[in-house]
């Protein structure tokens, strides 16, 4: 049974309200420590930070439009073996989806973890966020969330948002133990928190807060928001498909790629310790380059760029959760999230596997059925 409670927002200060909530979580028997997005002492980039000290939580800033990395990988570091205590983690919906995939790949565990999800207001790209903070200073996060919460759900999303957030159609925290609800609520007065698991329900009971029920307005807001986002997403799929529909166009799409592989490092679901593309399998003999140049008339260096991106599609598109960190990490602004999400939409549909949504569903390449895909066998 889902439990729902409400939290009074004092002085219209949502951030302080959430900080108080986090303190109560750490004070409860359900968590010993909490991983939450926090501002470093003298910096402005919000980073997942682990603490048990209530005072430290004054630096928690979960509504900042800052998303420097997908925290799923960090939560794996905290849960890959028994951490020896209970950990609560504040995560965005796409971070939870990535974590679901990583748990299936045996990189982390739900066992001693309590996930605090939230209605995600989105984030800016790193560079845009830093500019925003430079202009707005300490008031940045408040300005951002006030505007985001005041926006109509069917309005065009702010173009300050990272592209992946603009077309994100899963902005609610599926698979979180508890969810902080913001949309469709009068957040200047109160916000609500509801449970999605037994663990979550136990937490909310332990906190002894006034129970509530989610207003219909939230459902309506969400519906309208996701409809709008789905529409934008379809348009993005169509544009990306047109921009990459051929090997020559693909070459143009990736013409600024310098093979730095930041996109793979930033990708939460690319979990190999050593990517094949950085092994000596790719230290080609010098004579190979000359042979390529001869055969293909010319060869751009570094080589293996398209090969790398297509391989990543084959290896990881079934697990892509659409977080946009690949785009965020690219030094040359290649629209990677668009590319990955577009292809992932097809591959995930082919295997009926929406990545990150069902912790029990096995990754498609780890299982099979005997009676499937017979149409692709044979050569007639």
């Amino acid at each position, binding site marked *: 049974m889902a439990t729902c409670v409400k939290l009074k927002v004092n002085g219209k200060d949502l951030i302080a309200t959430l900080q108080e909530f986090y303190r109560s979580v750490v004070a409860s028997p359900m968590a010993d420590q909490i991983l939450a997005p926090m501002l470093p002492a003298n910096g402005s980039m919000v980073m997942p930070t682990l603490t048990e000290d209530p005072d430290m939580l004054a630096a928690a800033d979960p509504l900042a439009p800052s998303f420097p990395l997908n925290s799923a990988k960090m939560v794996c570091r905290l849960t890959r073996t028994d951490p020896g205590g209970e950990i609560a983690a504040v995560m965005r919906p796409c971070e939870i989806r990535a974590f679901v995939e990583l748990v299936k790949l045996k990189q982390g565990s739900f066992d001693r973890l309590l996930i605090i999800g939230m209605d995600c207001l989105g984030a800016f790209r790193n560079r845009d966020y830093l500019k925003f903070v430079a202009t707005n200073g300490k008031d940045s996060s408040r300005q951002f969330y006030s505007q985001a919460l005041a926006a109509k759900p069917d309005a065009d999303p702010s173009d300050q948002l990272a592209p992946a957030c603009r077309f994100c159609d899963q902005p609610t925290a599926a698979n979180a133990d508890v969810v902080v609800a913001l949309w469709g609520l009068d957040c200047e007065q109160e916000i609500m928190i509801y449970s999605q698991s037994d663990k979550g329900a136990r937490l909310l009971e332990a906190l002894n807060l006034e129970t509530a029920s989610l207003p219909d307005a939230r459902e309506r807001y969400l519906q309208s928001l996701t409809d709008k986002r789905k529409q934008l997403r379809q348009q993005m799929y169509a544009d990306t498909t047109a921009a990459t529909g051929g*090997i020559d166009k693909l070459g143009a799409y990736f013409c600024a790629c310098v093979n730095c592989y930041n996109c793979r490092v930033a990708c939460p679901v690319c979990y190999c310790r050593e990517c094949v593309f950085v092994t000596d399998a790719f230290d080609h003999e010098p004579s190979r380059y000359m042979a390529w140049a001869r055969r293909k008339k010319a*060869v*751009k260096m570094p080589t293996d760029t398209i*090969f790398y991106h297509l391989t990543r599609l084959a290896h990881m598109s079934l697990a892509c959760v659409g977080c946009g960190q690949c785009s965020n990490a690219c030094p040359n602004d290649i629209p990677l999230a668009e590319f990955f999400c577009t292809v992932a939409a097809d591959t995930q549909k082919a295997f009926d596997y929406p990545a990150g949504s069902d912790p029990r569903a096995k990754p498609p390449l780890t299982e099979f059925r005997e009676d499937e895909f017979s149409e692709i066998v044979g050569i007639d």
Partner: protein
Amino acid sequence: MSEFDPVIIAFVCNWCTYTAADLAGTSRLTYPPNVRLIRVMCTGMVDPQYVLKALLEGADAVLVSGCHPGDCHYINGNFKARRRIKLLKEILPRFGFDPQRLRLTWIGASDGVQFAGVMNDLVAQIRQLGPNQAKLQMVI
């Protein structure tokens, strides 16, 4: 004008299709020399990467061929291979690779005749399809 001579890379499993190819050879069956066989222990070990590499380097088609269902020496490698080929077939056509350029067949160890037949048909089909555009592109 000389006829287009396709290059076909075939990843064949040691236990079935490779044995069939051997049998075709010793039975003096003929099939076109366009097919380059790469022997793997099982189709279940053909990483999508191998297929991508071959196609980007300019192979006109890639064939993956292993044991019939139930005959895989590693129990179910062929079923896993089928999923990977399915995956690649979702990815490659959107970048201009004709689906015909990636094929999966199951040819048993004693099917020398079938092996030669498949190779003949495949080469004919790819000849008709024409060269893989990636061959001449600078992109790798």
